[in-house]
């Protein structure tokens, strides 16, 4: 069953067309990695999936919600989709625990006590049980990103979107974050992961999409795409990054 269905997606900023008609189907439990050169529209594509950016044309259906429908309750939709940013975007004026508890309590999904228990459980899961009362400023980059993931998981999403979650990290911290994503993949979470970590994409992805200049140039299993790319554009890109 299709968890994410994108048809003819176009997106322009002013006269600059950034996405030029994308068609993507993602099934439940599938892990899709999106790779491509800078400025090719990867982030924009991801942001259209939870409508942080307006769609210019085409349809996006996520978890049964049609995002092109103006009447759809975006706040409801977004609780089904977790998003993790390159720069973490933790709330600096709150403790780690408060960061994680904010959405569940504000959305009245859980009582304070329940939200707290859930948050502690999530922190334990990302290996940061001892950082509950710390402020984001006191954490390392890798720890911040793991808190950000825990925060997204707190509303119990069906889909997770990662936008270069490890790009802002020092190399020695990349591993700990990738491990968390790897664990989520193993648990069957549907995920779209924009990444520059080709090794990771090859390891965890069920499918890899290569984007360039706002179009999907080529897609396939990691073995196909990395082992035997068909398009010249793909070969060119891979020769530079591998």
């Amino acid at each position: 069953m299709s968890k994410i269905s994108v048809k003819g997606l176009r997106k322009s900023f002013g006269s600059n067309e950034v996405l030029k008609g994308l068609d993507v189907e993602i099934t439940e439990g599938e892990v899709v990695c999106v790779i491509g050169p800078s400025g090719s529209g990867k982030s924009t594509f991801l942001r259209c999936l939870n409508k942080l950016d307006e769609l210019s044309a085409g349809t996006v259906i996520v978890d049964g919600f049609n995002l092109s429908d103006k009447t759809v309750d975006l706040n409801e939709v977004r609780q089904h989709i977790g998003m993790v940013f390159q720069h973490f975007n933790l709330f600096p004026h709150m403790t780690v625990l408060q960061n994680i508890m904010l959405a569940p309590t504000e959305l009245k999904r859980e009582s304070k006590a329940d939200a707290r228990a859930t948050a502690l459980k999530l922190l334990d899961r990302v290996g940061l049980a001892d950082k509950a009362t710390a402020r984001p400023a006191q954490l390392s980059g890798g720890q911040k990103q793991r808190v950000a993931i825990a925060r997204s998981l707190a509303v119990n999403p069906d889909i997770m979107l990662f936008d270069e979650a490890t790009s802002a990290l020092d190399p020695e911290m990349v591993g700990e974050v990738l491990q968390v994503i790897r664990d989520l993949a193993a648990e069957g979470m549907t995920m779209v992961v924009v990444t520059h970590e080709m090794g990771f994409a090859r390891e965890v992805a069920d499918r890899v999409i290569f984007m360039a200049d706002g179009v999907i140039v080529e897609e396939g299993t990691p073995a196909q795409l990395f082992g035997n790319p068909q398009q010249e554009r793909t070969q060119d890109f891979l020769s530079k990054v591998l």
Partner: protein
Amino acid sequence: MFRAGKLSVAVMALLALGGGFLGVSAAAASQPLAQPQAAVTGETYVIGTDTTFAPFEYRKDGELTGIDMDLIRGIAKSQGFTVEIKSLGFDAALQALQSNQVDGVIAGMSITDERELIFDFSDPYFDSGVQMAVAEDNTEITGYSDLAGETVVAKRGSEGETFANSIKDEYDFTVKALADSATMYDDVKAGNSVAVFDDYPVLAYGINQNNGLKSVTEKEQGSSYGFAVNKGQNPELLAAFNTGLADLKDNGEYQAILDTYLEQPAPAAASGFFGLLSDSMPALMKGLGLTLLATGLSILIALVLGVLFGFFTVSESRVLRGIASVYVSIFRGTPLLVQAFFFYFGLPQLTGQSIDVLTAGVLTLSLNAGAYMTEIVRGGIQSVDPGQTEAGRSLGLGYVTTMRRVVLPQAVKIMTPSFINQFVMTLKDTSLLAVIGFAELTYQGQQIYAANFRTGETLLIVAALYFIVINLLTMLSNKLDKRFNK
């Protein structure tokens, strides 16, 4: 004296047109003057007057005193009625009389044709006129003919200015206009002008108070002052005033009163700086209270306006953004003083609805500070990383919740120093409201040196009070900021 805001003249003229016939018929209908003594005995009348117009009315040790005050009290005593005096300010007293909130006005008011349309005047009780004075040590100027090529000073819009202008070509001098007597006298003492033309009684009183000037010419005959009641109202009070005035003139009390203020050099024991300090403190404290009240109210309203329009500036609606930007550019793009004049004098003329000076002052300051607050709020919100909003929204939180829980707490922290700054600015800006007669700290200071001519010392005290209060408040605000925004 010819004071009277252009506004009140215009309003009075309008009322006179509209209500003239009514007034006249009411006067005709009222019974012929009864025996005044009988009619007023035991009655209490409310009398309006100016705040400070030395030597006719001014405060000494907190008590209203002056020629007008001694006269009305003396007449009341001789005629067996009681007066309750309200020190309202000149324009306000006239307005109160028209709306029958006071029974009579005595405020060093010239009897003019224009005013006689709407008020009934008593017999003149004082003949004013213009006189020229020079610095005490000036021996060169002894008459108008010595003024050739010199600059003289006169009060803007006064009889003195009219008179000086009428002879300036003949004697070849220049006339400069200033706003009040104390400033004019300082101007002469400082040598910026060689002579001043002022109302004779005001000048005589100033000289009597050792203002450093001396008069060198005889007074020019000018207008006469009268006591006024509303047209057709309180005829028995008017009659009692006339009878009482005649009595006081007969028994010599009238002359004694004039001498007290104009002749006898009874210099107020020139107290030292600390004497001035302790004498002026009660009035200055009252002024400071009003300064703080106006600041507090204005800042609160400005905060609400700033938050409202600040949100407009970051909203997605083009209309709201437009409204906010028009508001901000109007109030940042015009001087505060012009705004104050507009709200106090202009707006009532446009709407026909009079506005009290506190309301006008707070309106001015809060709209003005609100514009700056809007910019502070906009700057604060925009300085929060957009990623914060995106993180909040992507968790499924609504716009309002994201603002309230994520963006604003961070923005407030950024904005607080600017808020404190605006608070101080607004406090200082209240001093501009002195020009519309709002009795705040600066105004009280002006009133004090208008009566004692000790401009420098009084302004030093006023400045010191501002300095102390502003620094205390700044320290307090910074403490609170540290405490809550760590």
